[in-house]
């Protein structure tokens, strides 16, 4: 709804400027019209119409062309202050002026339309490329677990005597794993579409950052891999206003990545600190870091590192970025000089000191 009045205003602005320019040039030329001759005035007016055509829509430009022709006729072509033209040459020039101004306006407009079309086509091609990448990684990520489930249940349903009890329980285990994997991907896709539709709003409430971080670490250890994760939380960490659910997802995605991709021998560290009205959370590791060339892309939707193994849709980090931005915060990735990656999240937030609430 808000865009329509804006558009209307923009149109109004174009009309006012194009007519204003014509009137302005007319005003400036009028006192000198005898000195420079009325034919030069026509050229000046034509110039104004051309300049208008470069920037404005067709209708304001056509109006400017018509108006300038009439003005030129009325104020400059002798006899002045009438629309009558006595001289044949002047009459010819008037019509030529009119036609040149119109053609000028129309041609410029068409060139601009074609430019717009070309831009749109390029945009479409880019979207298509993205869409194809999406389809490739998605179909792989979704079909692998689905194939596992269908295949395993088929095997179990056919009364296969050769299936040992051990095979049976292995197949059941595979079904369970596949279903959980499918669930993660669907959750990712739902989160992404929530972000895309602009539906995600941070519902901020007071959060205990300490609790948040340890809660996420416990979840990661439970669902992914038992892995040592070091924690450093600033002393006197105040309560912060965050959307607990969204921040949980952000930290989970970062830690999950680290746990899955940082070599087991290297350290993973999550740290939290604060300054006035800011919360800063870092997830760092001593692994191999990211290829410098690809760092600017890691938060892009569906982007996966060039040499990464299969698995993963390339959504985790872009969801993390989206959720951080829903808090008006920023997330960045750098390689540490000592090796390894460092994700840094900065979120503007009100803080509330814990000591204010102790009772009795």
């Amino acid at each position: 709804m808000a865009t329509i009045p804006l558009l209307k205003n923009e149109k109004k602005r174009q009309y006012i400027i194009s007519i204003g320019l014509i009137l302005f040039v007319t005003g400036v030329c009028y006192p000198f019209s005898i000195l420079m001759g009325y034919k030069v005035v026509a050229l000046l007016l034509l110039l104004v119409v051309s300049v208008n055509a470069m920037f404005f829509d067709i209708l304001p430009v056509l109006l400017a062309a018509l108006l300038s022709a009439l003005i030129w006729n009325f104020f400059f072509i002798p006899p002045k202050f009438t629309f009558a033209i006595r001289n044949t040459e002047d009459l010819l020039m008037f019509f030529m002026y009119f036609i040149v101004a119109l053609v000028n306006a129309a041609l410029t407009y068409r060139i601009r339309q074609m430019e717009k079309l070309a831009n749109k086509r390029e945009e479409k091609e880019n979207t298509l490329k993205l869409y194809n990448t999406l389809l490739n990684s998605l179909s792989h990520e979704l079909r692998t677990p689905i194939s596992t489930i269908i295949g395993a249940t088929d095997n179990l349903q056919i009364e296969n005597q050769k299936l040992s009890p051990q095979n049976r329980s292995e197949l059941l285990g595979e079904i369970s794993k596949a279903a959980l994997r499918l669930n993660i991907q669907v959750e990712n896709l739902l989160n992404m579409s929530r972000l895309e539709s602009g539906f995600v709003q941070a519902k901020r409430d007071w959060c205990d950052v300490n609790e948040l971080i340890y809660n996420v670490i416990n979840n990661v250890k439970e669902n992914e891999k038992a892995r040592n994760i070091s924690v450093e939380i600033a002393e006197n960490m105040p309560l912060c206003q965050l959307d607990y659910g969204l921040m949980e997802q952000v930290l989970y995605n970062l830690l999950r990545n680290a746990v899955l991709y940082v070599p087991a021998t290297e350290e993973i560290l999550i740290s939290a600190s604060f300054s006035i009205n800011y919360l800063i959370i870092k997830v760092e590791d001593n692994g191999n870091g990211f290829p410098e060339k690809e760092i600017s892309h890691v938060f892009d939707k569906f982007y996966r590192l060039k040499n990464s193994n299969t698995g993963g849709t390339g959504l985790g980090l872009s969801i993390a970025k989206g959720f951080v931005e829903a808090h008006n915060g920023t997330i960045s990735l750098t390689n540490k000089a000592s090796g390894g990656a460092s994700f840094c999240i900065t979120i503007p937030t009100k803080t509330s000191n814990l000591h204010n609430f102790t009772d009795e």
Partner: protein
Amino acid sequence: MNNAGILIIDDEIQIRKLLEITLLSNDYKVSLASTAKEGLMMAANHPPDLILLDLGLPDESGHSLLLRLREWFKKPILILSVQSSEQDIVQALDNGANDYLCKPFRTGELLARIRSALRSGSTEETSNIIDCGELQIDLVARTVKRNQDFLKLTLTEYNLLALFAKNEGKVLTHQYLLRQVWGPSYANESQYLRVFIAQLRKKIEKDANQPKYIVTESGVGYRFIAKNS
């Protein structure tokens, strides 16, 4: 205490089938309803011991069905919901649901929640002392012991812990805790709750960062677990 009757109200036939098989094989008596209307009728004609209620029903929202059931049905109602709808869950809990499960849920979790809900519905304050392994809470003497040592709790900390202990296994929403412990005008002062939960955990948990008694339910509230298996 099996052989309890459970009414399942869910419009998805696959979920009904799954729940039916799971519950029957655990010796519960099961009845099934696929719409709110059917569910309401069955609950009235053969009152079950527990209701599993899906929030997304075709003919009426699960929320309004919950309110109508709660006008007379006093036994536990467990909500089935989809993930990432914390607001729905909080609303249902505030409207009298006893607990919730997010689809997809694990069978073990489902059975544990049902057991816990049935238990809390049956024990009517039989004992003054709540025994939670290392932790003993004496509701009459208003004392708390951990490994035989008395803990020094502030009044607010004790009130919070006692409220948790009386609602063992049940998820309590932030608003509910604030209202009960601090009073109705504090319902939105969640910073108090955060601070006191952190303090209480430091006193009663072995490791406050890996809480076993007061467990966080993301975006919803907290749950007190007395027995850790």
